[in-house]
């Protein structure tokens, strides 16, 4: 039976909206002053940070030993409080959804917990990973159903990620991830983060005249997947979309490229070979498109995505880089869906995330969190008859566990 300790509850503290953050102004236009944020919870958080640091050495080894122990270790720490919501700080549903996707990913939180805490207070306030860690701690210790991410939001505004702006989740994800990565001072840790998320591909350009090939390696954080194929036909499934993405393209006429060998513009074949797929793979459905002389439109038709994805069945031999290792591991399970409802200019984000420790789907709508089923996730496939319903926008796949 759960015990309830009312006294404990209060120690966690009430929080207040900071005027600077979410300036609550009355309808008469008269602002009401509010006090500085109570610092009550601060010591508690620092304490937990110390704990985290103490455990670091032990954890380091565990990480090396692989997923299983890792899950046991961090899982116990990460989800002892179940899923907790995040209050909307003013059109921050997009940020909230992304944060939840980060926080529910135990491979990410393992990295997050090992960051070096900035020593200077101003540094602390500016450090995105540190603020994220604080928020994570706060969520895990909260006895409430949801917490305010105000410190993190304030920190982000310092980095030009403003509130009350409609963000595109894919764009915000990229910005956020870059901020995190650039602010992790430990190079090894930053590399781990990179390995966890980066997709490596080799772009190539083959001259049709002389077969001269130009190659270039690039890193991607997400695969931006098309909704239509090159003939503007609707793609039927995520697998089709992936195939279409890796399909080489003929560049002719005005699109011809300069071939170094022929020393003139020649028709070319442009394509991409997959070199490496990360542990956490983010796919981005290009549901928003920009039409000339009109607003951004949203494509809401259905594009089903599978619960598990095997790239070996999708890509042909030519679409994989010959050096690609771990091809056998290119098997993925769906981990999270960031879904958008509403119109392109005006909408709401929520996140469906598979809890790795509990083996359940959760839906995060800002402060409201509920357990859902695969049927609910499927509901975000889209529907061409509705315009306001939830449609998947970002899909996060996680590599299948070897077991």
């Amino acid at each position, binding site marked *: *039976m*759960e015990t*309830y300790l*009312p006294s404990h*509850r209060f120690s966690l*503290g*009430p*929080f*207040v*909206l900071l005027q600077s953050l*979410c*300036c*609550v*102004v*009355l*309808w008469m236009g008269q602002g*009401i*002053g*509010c*006090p500085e944020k*109570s610092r009550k919870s601060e010591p508690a958080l620092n304490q937990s940070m110390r704990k985290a640091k103490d455990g670091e050495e032990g954890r380091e080894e565990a990480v090396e030993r692989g997923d299983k122990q890792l899950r046991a270790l961090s899982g116990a720490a990460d989800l002892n409080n179940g899923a907790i*919501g995040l*209050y*909307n700080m*003013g*059109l921050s549903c997009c940020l909230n959804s992304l944060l939840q996707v980060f926080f529910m990913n135990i491979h990410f939180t393992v990295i997050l917990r090992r960051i070096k805490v900035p020593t200077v207070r101003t540094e602390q306030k500016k450090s995105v990973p540190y603020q994220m860690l604080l928020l994570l701690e706060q969520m895990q210790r909260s006895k*409430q159903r*949801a917490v305010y991410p105000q410190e993190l939001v304030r920190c982000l505004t310092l980095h030009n990620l403003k509130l*009350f702006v409609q963000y595109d989740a894919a764009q915000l994800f990229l910005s956020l991830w870059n901020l995190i990565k650039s602010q992790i001072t430990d190079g090894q840790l930053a590399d781990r983060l990179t390995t966890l998320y980066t997709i490596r591909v080799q772009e190539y350009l083959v001259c049709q005249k002389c077969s001269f090939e130009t190659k270039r390696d690039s890193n991607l954080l997400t695969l931006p997947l098309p909704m239509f194929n090159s003939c503007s036909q609707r793609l039927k499934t995520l697998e089709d979309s992936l195939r279409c993405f890796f399909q080489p393209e003929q560049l002719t006429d005005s699109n011809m490229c300069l071939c170094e060998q022929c020393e003139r513009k020649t028709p070319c074949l442009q394509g991409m070979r997959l070199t490496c797929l990360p542990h956490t793979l983010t796919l981005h459905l290009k549901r928003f498109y920009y039409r000339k002389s009109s607003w951004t439109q949203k494509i809401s038709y259905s594009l089903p995505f599978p619960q598990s994805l095997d790239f070996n069945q999708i890509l042909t031999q030519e679409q994989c880089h010959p050096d690609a290792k771990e091809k056998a591991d290119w098997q993925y399970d769906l981990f999270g869906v960031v879904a958008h*409802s*509403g119109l392109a200019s*005006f*909408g*709401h984000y*929520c996140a469906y995330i598979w809890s790795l420790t509990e083996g359940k789907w959760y*839906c995060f*709508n*800002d*402060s*409201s969190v*509920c357990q*859902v*089923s695969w*049927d*609910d996730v*499927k*509901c975000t496939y889209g*529907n061409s*008859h*509705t*315009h*306001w*319903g*939830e449609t998947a926008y970002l899909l996060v796949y996680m590599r299948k566990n070897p077991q």
Partner: protein
Amino acid sequence: MAQWQEVQQLEKAYLEQVHQLYSEDHLPMEVRQYLAPWLEDQNWSRAAEPPAAEPHSSQAHMLFQTLLALLDDQYSRFGASENDFVLKHNLRKSKLNLQARYQECPEQLANVIANLLREEKAILSRGLAAQQAAAQPPASAPMETDRQQKIERRLAEAKAAVQELDREVRHLEELQDTFDFRYKLHRMVASGAPPSPDLARQTEQLQAMLNNLDRSRKDVLARAQELLGRCETLRDFLLEELAEWKDRQRRACIGAACDSSLSRLETWFTGAAEVLFQLWRLLQALGDQHVKLTYQHDPLATQRPLLESRLQEQLSCLLRSAFVVEIQPIMPFPNRRPLVLKTGSKFSVRARLLVKLQDRSHRLEVKIVLDQHPPDVKGFRKFNILTSTSKTLVQDDPQMEGLVCDFRHISLKDQRAGASGKGSKGASEGLLAITEELHLITFTLDYKYQELALELQTSTLPVVIISSNNQFSSAWASVLWFNMLSPDPKNQLFFSAPPAASWAQLAEVLNWQFSAATERGLDKEQLHMLAEKLFGPEATPASTLTWAKFAKDNPPVFSFWTWLDGILNLIRDHLAQLWKDGHIMGFVSRKRERQLLKRKQMGTFLLRFSESSREGGITCSWVEPGEKGQPKVRSVEPYTKMELTSLPLPDIIHDYQLVAAENIPENPLKFLYPGTPRDEAFGKYYTERREVDLLERRKYLNRRLIRVSSRQPHEPWLPEDMVAAPPAAEGLAANHLEALELGANRLEALEPGASHLEPLELGANHVEALEPGACGLEALGLGAYELESLELGAYGLEALGLGAYGLEALEPGANHLEALEPGPSRLEALEPGPSRLEALEPGPSRLEALEPGPSRLEALEPGPSRLEALEPGASTQEALEALKQELDLMSFDQAGSNVLRGGDPYLPPPADMPPPVLSGNTLFLGANDLPPLHVDSKDFQ
């Protein structure tokens, strides 16, 4: 049901957990009991988290005071009885305890209660889950699918969630009112007054309250988002379920046995719509709150419009799909085949709104229109709907459940019928044949509920409109093809390029045709034969058949469907019981038939549908020893509805006899495949034969109508394949009676003359052999001449251009007996038209002179009424029956008939000779007993 009530109904193990929950002294159970509804309706968790600036949350404080007041109230309600005394004591003690304990910290109590309620809920859901799990196996009787269970569960969850939200919105209102009041007060005080620490503290408090309000608004909005998301899933489930229902209805229309009841769907749709409408009201309430009080970055301002649009879209989506055609257009009469309408004939159709929500003040009117958007095809017919085209959706009709509108007794009229005169369409006029022209009836409903106004539309499946009954079969083929294959249920131009059907699809649909019309579908073997017939021996489920091959008649070749529908009609009208009981193998190829029968004992037979008869024919095939001792399979020419109308198939089988010169006539049909003795299989279907008492037996010979085949001994059997060829091609071999009757050449062979005497006698012979009655006839003095003239008569009749029927009636022996046998009612059937009767007249008049039979025949033909008029003597049916019985008597006893043939039955006795005297153990005890086949009218009196 309230939570506390549900908790009390839990099973013991779970009740134990509840007791444990209340064992600690946080909140006494009696308080929980007495104040159950009130406790459950408060937002304790909110009260437990006071805003920072207020050490004593006003809400928790207020709730605490109310709690105490309610307890006092409860206390005062107890009487003075002894029981109550203890209760009073306990309650008082509890109240004092609570007061002492939480006076200073009402938030703690709020927290305790919030936790208790949450724990209770958890126990409850575990308990209910266990109960459900236990109750599952027996309760699964109505075969709930996984999805149906999910729908039920989600609906219950959504209802609970929207109730919860409702409570929160009310609390939000309270919060807002409190803030509003205090803020206004503050402003009054603050205006003009110098800043003071007191004012600053008040401002602080107000800010805290506002923050709290802001958070509550965000919470409510987030919950609403979540609820909408879950409702989307629910809606998707409902739409899937509805799509399945539509599919079932479509299949049921073309004969499948599917449950097309809508009551569950209605419950679900109504439930889901109720939740959404309630949510809508809540959003409107939030809108009102927003108008009363707003601030910068008010989440209500930014998020509510989005929610409202999303909700409205969901509601209209739900409502649009909830408007369905419950009963597809159907004419009241023929054979359960909907979607075929005939101009000028009444039909009915019913629409239903599955969301049973209706404003009493708003009348829901439904309009129907045919072909709202007619396809742009030349010659596409236009029709008017006669009588009213609008109707009100009614709920309270006691005869019908649900919100339905029933259009009955409406009919269609071709718009051109008046102008162009005929209304029939020339082949060149339009692209589509009449039976390939698809029309849609569309219902439009102006729906209004609360503040939502929508125009809902639904359409029937495409209907085929015909103008005469003989188009019915091919119209039905179109309906089958469309509903089997069209992916789009509204595609009116389906037949401009009809797709081909795979055998797998077609087989299923054909099977339904049989199971729907006859209560017995086709088995694997039968379907296999059909597949081979259509696709040859390499038929696979993936083999495809084009629409043209399926249903396009191309005279004189008739299509597969025409053939099959003919058989369906034959079964329905004449063979229903035999088919239903599985005695008709029916669809079996000749080759297969031979394989099956050859391995069986001689005399094994089966029933097979003719493949060459357009109207449906059935034949018997049996195995008998062939020339070299090898088994031979023979078939009788198919019986069609013509024959079966006069004589049921079981009787034909029972009495069927085969005659050959060297053979004693016998019934070759002994065992129904695979080995059931004939009478065991068909016994119960035989027409009941009257038991005759001995006295009556003396008066009349028995007689009965049977089918006979004969063949000449030296005549070779035709190759099997030719048996089905038109009778004219069969040569002279009179291997069965009907065949014999059909061609004039056969009669020629029987023409009198010395050389022809033998065949003539043969004819007489088998008549005699098969028909003891005929034997009597012979014995009564039919000479060669008479026979000849008889034949001449027949010939003459033939020359008069009569059909087989008339001729059959005049065939010697068998024929008049046939005519006599069944009694007046059967006779009517035998003699379809008076015209034929008239045509018969010249012949029989001659026959009349020769023997009494024909005269009777003639007299009998017209049916009872004419009978009286024509034959004064034979007016009573009684007399006829007597005669029949007498004949029966004779035909029953083979021995007797043998004796009858005793003298020299093959040679006609001299004309003046008295009838031969029979002796021995014959049925006829003496010459005088020989019953009056040779009758005059006196006998009938």
